[in-house]
């Protein structure tokens, strides 16, 4: 469904991502793990069109979308939950969800999506009329995911959904990811919480200073001694 070929992204003169290859097949959960500053967010922002790549191709459903504007990419069903949640804090929870469904046409369909999102996140239903900024960190992450689900994503990009959350919420977030996977949503998951990410993923890539240094089935990556030493606290 998604192929990334030789992707290079630079900020000014410094290359943050150096010719990486990556692919995500329909129904898979692919994870990208790596330390602070490895370039994970840069990759996701580029996939979504927020940054123009210096070189390389991003092929979504057979079409090169590198350099396409973000709203067009979202409309093609590749939807991102950005790092730090980026919910609209000054708007209500309900308004955030409406914005998430921006690409969806038709009030009936939007309503159906909203019911399904609220079914998945009952805590959001209780807080529909509250300002999103008043939610706890975990609730904000649920809202960020729920907002993305409003767009009926075919490919969901998640940037460190567990960042800064209490352990209980982290468990909940990964349970949700497993649920989404069971529902057949294709996911590209960026995480620093490598053990949880490797557990839920089918395929894993390890990113180090802008390069993919190891790729393969998640179980095999999780067993790699270097990965155990560097990311799994072994």
């Amino acid at each position, binding site marked *: 469904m998604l192929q990334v070929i030789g992707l290079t992204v630079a900020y000014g003169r410094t290359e943050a991502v150096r010719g990486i290859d990556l692919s995500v097949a329909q129904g898979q959960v692919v994870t990208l793990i790596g330390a602070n500053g490895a370039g994970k967010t840069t990759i996701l922002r580029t996939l979504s*069109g927020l940054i123009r790549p210096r070189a390389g191709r991003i092929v979504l459903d057979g079409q090169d979308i590198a350099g396409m504007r*973000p*709203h067009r990419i*979202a409309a093609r069903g590749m939807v991102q939950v950005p790092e730090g949640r*980026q*919910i609209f804090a*000054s708007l209500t929870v309900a*308004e955030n969800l409406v*914005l998430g469904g921006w690409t969806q046409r038709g009030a009936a369909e939007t309503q159906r999506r909203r019911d399904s999102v609220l079914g998945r996140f009952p805590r959001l239903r209780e807080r529909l009329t509250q300002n999103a900024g008043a939610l706890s960190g975990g609730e904000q992450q649920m809202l960020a995911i729920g907002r993305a689900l409003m*767009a009926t994503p075919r490919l969901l990009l998640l940037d460190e959904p567990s960042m800064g959350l209490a352990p209980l919420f982290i468990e909940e977030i990964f349970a949700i990811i497993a649920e989404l996977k069971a529902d057949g949503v294709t996911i590209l998951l960026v995480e620093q919480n490598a053990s949880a990410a490797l557990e839920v993923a089918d395929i894993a890539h390890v990113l180090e200073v802008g390069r993919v240094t190891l790729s393969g089935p998640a179980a095999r990556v999780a067993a790699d001694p270097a990965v155990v030493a560097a990311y799994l606290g072994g």
Partner: protein
Amino acid sequence: MLAQQLANGVLLGATYALFALGFTLMFGVLRVINLVYGFYFTAGAFFSLWLAQAGWPLIAALPAAAVGAGVVAVALDWLLLTRLRRAHADELASLMVTLGAVLALYAAATAWLGPDIRRLPPDLVGGGAVDAIGVRVTFAQLLILAACGALVGLLVLLVRGTTLGLAIRAMAEKPDAAALMGIDTARLAALVSFISGSLAGAGGVLIGLNFNAIHPYMGEQMMLRGFVVVIVGGLGDIFGALLAGLLLGVVEVLTAGYLASGLKEAVGFAILVLVLWTRPAGLFGRADARRA
């Protein structure tokens, strides 16, 4: 006497508020300090002058001039600010670019149109007036008040009451996140430019009508007041701009009436300095002043 002064002040202030609203909307949503904004005011005034001279009635000339100014705004903003926005340049960069541009624009407009003060055709608005409780209000003033009220109402309705307004508020808060939702932020930015420019243009028409004086630099004089209103009201705050606009109008008229006419600008700026000293987030200071 006082009642009459207050009425005149409110009428003048309504136009200030209208003008400042567009400026504060542009800042609140696009996060640029756009000094070219005053030029849209001049443009609106001249468009209405030309249309009126061509025989258009005011009821048609006012909206047409506003739309014309909006189109000018979209074109100039696109030319001057798109690149800055894309580079996520800070507010100072937009300030400098638009300062240079607006000085050039005023100079070019003056070279082309001449510095003289133009008058609207005398029969544009009936010369009548209404008297009530000892206050005399001309038809022109009533029309100004009605137009300001209608435009402000429409703007508030758009921003607060429609999904388009919701997208505008989302973009004001987090442009990247809004783009990830599938919102075409470039197009929305152009729409905001258009709305702002139209408000400035309508303000130009109405002030031209109020004082019956139109000249190329009128936008610059207005821009100074726009700054006072927008900062006193809190940058990016629509309701703050409304109140501060009315306040400035009243203060100016009272100063001219009871102190000295030459002091009215000084008083406006004295208020500005006082507010910045005591309440940097604006008179109605909410901590986050960026509310579209």
